[in-house]
Each structure stands twice: as structure tokens, then as C-alpha cells.
């Protein structure tokens, strides 16, 4: 297995997602009623640049994990395309099997993502063997990777998953993802289930490995602090749509979307002078089977105006790399706050 070459050059995004939609059909009752759809992911566009870490945040049920599974092609999208380094995934240019060599995933549940009947080294060596690496070589690579994720091969290679701690198992999962020498790794809540101290170790390991192997990360988490720490850019999702996407520092310092503001103000602060002042989010997110009309956030939005329930906000670029979907930032949208600023908010790229 040779190293994978860069095709489009550094300027071309590694991954481009266009109009990604995933609707899960609901079962009809015997009389044929019902049968709606859960709009888990409903029109998502974004890019992942080469060598960056894109953080994805949002409440439970906002479609983060569905997006991850769609990116990984573990579930079939209803609509939309996934373009990897200029080649459409699943096309003749980039067959699925080849794509899956280049993109790997680490799951949240470190125990459930390892086969309890296989030794650690067999679990890691499975991927390369699927891609035609002889068993001896793939086991050698597995042992090498164990060392790189900080687990001594002599002590761990022939162990079974239940003999390891959560942090050790997640290191194994990371090694397994790297065994195929991918260019991109999707980390779906990969550190969320770990103790804080172990979480910090694993995050540092991830950052080291990223530098060592020149990886690109999609880092999905509900932990806003962790996302800020690891991400170059951050995407905020709400009810299957992108609320806001932009460079991490700019987004955390001056969030443009009311949802992002609410989300960030719910973040506990270590500074007593900097207590939560803005009202944190009240209630649960609405039902994705029957999402609110207009802007999906308007029933919970502190700045909602009548127009928000009628007009679907478009994505407005408010700076390089920065985009927000909110009528406040859409000139002439009819939102009272939008009229005050005819020009879209221009912000400095961080």
C-alpha cells in the first residue's frame, strides 16, 4: 500500500459537501397514515480544507453523527454529493473502497467499536488485510501503530478489548483508523466518553498524530471547549442544517448567529466575573419530523421577528471563510435588525 498522493494541490478542499440531505422514512400505520420523514440532515454544504481540523458542534439530535456517517458513506444520502479531493465519491474516479482507504472514522464508544473476539493487533490489522496487505506485514504495521499511539506492543498486541481501559481502547481505535494510512479521519465524539485527564492525553495524541501523518480531521463533539482547542474552523449545526461556519477564534469571540451565541453562553466559565448573562437555551430542539417553518431556530430565538417564521434564511458570507444563516445578517430580509445594517456584517478573517 503506497502513500496517497495529493491530487488537487493544497488549495483544493479535501472534502466538499454539497446539498447533503438524509431523511429517514417513518413507518406508516396499517391504514397508510403517517409515513413522514425524520429530516436528520437537511441541506448541508461545507468544505474541509487540506490539513485543517473542522470542528462540528450542536445539541444532541442536530445531525452531527448522521453527517459523520454520511461522510463515511456508512449510510446512503437521500440527496447531495460528497466530493473528495476533486473526485466524486462512488464514481469511477473514486470507488467506494478506495475512498474508504483515504477516510477513516473513530467512534464514541471505544468498547463497542472493537470486536470483543479479536486481539488488539488483529483488530488493527484487519483494515490493511482487506486492502491486500499480507497478514505478516499488517500485523507488523499494527504493532508499529500501537507504539505510536502510546501503547507498548509487547504488552498490548495480544490483549482483548475488555482487558483495556477506556482511554487505552480509544488509542487502539485511533491506531485502527490510521492503519489504512488515511488522509482524513472523522472523529465522532471520539473523546467524549473519556475521563477529563484521559481526554486531554488523547487529544494531545490526536494533535501529535495529525502533525506526524499530515492528517485532516473532522472533529465532532458537543464539548465546546474541546472543539475550540482542537479546531481551525468550527461549524455549528442546528436541526440538520448549518447555522454558522467560520474560523474557530472569530466564531467563539464574536458569534454571528443567535443560536451560536446561546450555545456559547451556556458554556460554563472559569471566571466568576464572566458569568453567564444571556439567557441560555430554553427547552428542547423542535421535532425534526416536522421542523418549524422559516428559520428553524425562530421558536427558541431571543431575536426572532415575525419574518423569521416565514422566510428561510440563506447562507450569507460575512467574511473570508465565514458564513452564517440568519435573517439578521441578510440585508433587506425584513428583519428589524437587518434593516439597521444594510451592508452584511464584514468581519476580519481571524
Amino acid at each position: 500500500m503506497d502513500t496517497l498522493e495529493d491530487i488537487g494541490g493544497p488549495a483544493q478542499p479535501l472534502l466538499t459537501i454539497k446539498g447533503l440531505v438524509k431523511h429517514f422514512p417513518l413507518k406508516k400505520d396499517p391504514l397508510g397514515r403517517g409515513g413522514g420523514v425524520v429530516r436528520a440532515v437537511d441541506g448541508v454544504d461545507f468544505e474541509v480544507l487540506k490539513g485543517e481540523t473542522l470542528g462540528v458542534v450542536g445539541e444532541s439530535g442536530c445531525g452531527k453523527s448522521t453527517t459523520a456517517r454520511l461522510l463515511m458513506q456508512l449510510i446512503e444520502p437521500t440527496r447531495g454529493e460528497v466530493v473528495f479531493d476533486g473526485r466524486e465519491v462512488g464514481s469511477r474516479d473514486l470507488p467506494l473502497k478506495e475512498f474508504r482507504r483515504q477516510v477513516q472514522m473513530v467512534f464514541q464508544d471505544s468498547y463497542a467499536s472493537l470486536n470483543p473476539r479479536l486481539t488488539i493487533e488483529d483488530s488493527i490489522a484487519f483494515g490493511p488485510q482487506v486492502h491486500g496487505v499480507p497478514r505478516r506485514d499488517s500485523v507488523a504495521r499494527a504493532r508499529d501503530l500501537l507504539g505510536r499511539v502510546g501503547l507498548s506492543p509487547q504488552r498490548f498486541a495480544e490483549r482483548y478489548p475488555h482487558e483495556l481501559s477506556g482511554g487505552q481502547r480509544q488509542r487502539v481505535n485511533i491506531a485502527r483508523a490510521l492503519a489504512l494510512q488515511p488522509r482524513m479521519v472523522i472523529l465522532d465524539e471520539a473523546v467524549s466518553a473519556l475521563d477529563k485527564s484521559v481526554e486531554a492525553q488523547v487529544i494531545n495524541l490526536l494533535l501529535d498524530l495529525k502533525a506526524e501523518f499530515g492528517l485532516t480531521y473532522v472533529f465532532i463533539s458537543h464539548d465546546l471547549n474541546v472543539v475550540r482547542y482542537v479546531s481551525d474552523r468550527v461549524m455549528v449545526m442546528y436541526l440538520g442544517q448549518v447555522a454558522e461556519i467560520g474560523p474557530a477564534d472569530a466564531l467563539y469571540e464574536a458569534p454571528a448567529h443567535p443560536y451560536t451565541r446561546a450555545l456559547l453562553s451556556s458554556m460554563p466559565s472559569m471566571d466568576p466575573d464572566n458569568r453567564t448573562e444571556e439567557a441560555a437555551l430554553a427547552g428542547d430542539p423542535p421535532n425534526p419530523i416536522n421542523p418549524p417553518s422559516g428559520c428553524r431556530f425562530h421558536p427558541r430565538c431571543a431575536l426572532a421577528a415575525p419574518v423569521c417564521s416565514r422566510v428561510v434564511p440563506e447562507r450569507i458570507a460575512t467574511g473570508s471563510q465565514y458564513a452564517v444563516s440568519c435573517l439578521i445578517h441578510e440585508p433587506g430580509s425584513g428583519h428589524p435588525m437587518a434593516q439597521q445594517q444594510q451592508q452584511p456584517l464584514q468581519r476580519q478573517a481571524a
Partner: protein
Amino acid sequence: MSTVLASSPTAVAVEPLPAQRSRGYWASVWLRLRRDPVAIGAAVVVLLLIALALFGPWLAPADPYQSSMLKRLKPIGTEGLPLGSDELGRDMLSRLIVGARLSLFIGITPVLCAFVGGTVIGIVAGYAGGLTNTLIMRTIDVFYAFPSVLLAIALSGTLGAGVVNSLISLTIVFIPQIARVAESVTTQVRTRDYVEAARASGASPFTIVRVHVLGNVLGPIFVYATSLIAVSMILASGLSFLGLGVKPPEPEWGLMLNTLRTAIYVQPWVAALPGVMIFITSISFNILSDGLRSAMDNKG
């Protein structure tokens, strides 16, 4: 690179590990089973029965086919007939011992065949999911809807009497039951993250089933199949009882129960002996499969 890693805090994953070499899954199941005295007792009985089946003809004190009009229906404890004699004056002890072979054979063989067939069908249905699953499982349900005794009798009756035909009909009776279990376990395993991860590494469905699914579903299916051995023995005995299975004068417990039933008022204890053997066998297999189930349930 190793120097960088060694100096970084991520390189240390200090946590004590058990000193002994790690055991495989089945080794730890055996370790837990060993601590379960009831299951071990049942296992010993099962082994004794298997020994009886293998070496019965050499262990039997008398010829199980040798009838005697003078010694008919003698009670237990008669001189030379420790367990009495049957309606044709044959030695019950010898017939019970020699009968173990045929009884166990027609009890276990259908379960083994159904284990293979049902597992394949169940895994295919469970892993494929969707329409394939619906088609396979609804077909299975048609068979499942019949009471198993009725289905076995109907199939045996259609195929005709005989040992081979009764084995075939029992296999057909058990395939749907095992397939159901296999399907439900496979459906659970299919959604585990390690199967997703295997799919994400580009493995074909066949490879995923072979490496990741099979090892995790065979245990529960095996346990269920062990519990069917008792049912199979009773059904097989029932078929023999009805004259659809083993033919006289072969010694087989179900058939012996049948031919001795007319003597139930004359010599009730002797007439009950084949039933006692069937009972001991089926309860031993049941206890053993229960013990196996709890030994395998234990996580970690």
C-alpha cells in the same frame, strides 16, 4: 519521531495490566463454567450418556434382542434381570444401554443439521436486513406457525416411516427456530460500531460476516441449539412412539416407551424406565445449556 513521542505526555499510558497472559473468549467461558457445579454435574451426565452411546454394545450384560417367553415383564430386581424385562422378555438394562446410541443419534443429528442450516439462513437474513430479511423471515414464520410436534408428524408421515426420514423432518422443524435466534443476534451485532468500522475500512459483506459477525453470534446460537437437543429427543421418541421413526425390534427409548405402554398397569416401574432415560438426558442438556448461557453472558 519516537523521541518526540517519548517526550510528549501522550506516550505514557500507564495502567496496570493483569500479570497472566490474556485468555481468549472460550477459555474464559470454560473458566466460569468450571465454577458452576450444577452445570458441571450435567456435563458429566452428558459425557456418561455419550460414553454409553459409544460403548453400549460392549457394556450391555445381555443380548438386547434376545427374547424369552418365560421371562416376560419381570419386575426390577429379578435374578439376572436387574432392571426387569420387557413385554417380550428382553433384558431392560441391556436395551436401555444399547438404546442410548440410537436415541442420542436421532436426538442430536437433527439439531446439528439445523444448527448449520439455521445459522446460515439467520445470518444472511440478519446481515442483509431490509427486503431480503422480510422475505426470508416471513417464509420461516410459515413453518414456525405450526406446532413443532404436528409439523414433525406431518413431515414424517409425508416422507414415510424410517430413521432417515424422521431425521430430515426434525431438521426441517428446527431450522426455523434456530434461524430466528440467529437472525435476531445477527441484527444486534450488525449495528455495533466494530461492524460499522469494518465496513468503513472497505471490507466486503462476506469478510465482515466471517471475521466480525460469526464469532459473536455462534455462542448464543449454540446455546439455543443445545437446549433443542432435549426437545429433539422427545420429538424423535414421539415419532418412534407413533411408528414413524425407529422400527422394532431396535432398542430406542421412545419406541420402548411405546411398546411398553400396554404394560403400564402390570409393571409400571419397568414401563417408565425409558421415560426416565429420556428425562435424564433432556434435563442434563438443558442444565448444561443454561450453564453455558450464563458463562457466556458474563462480560469482561
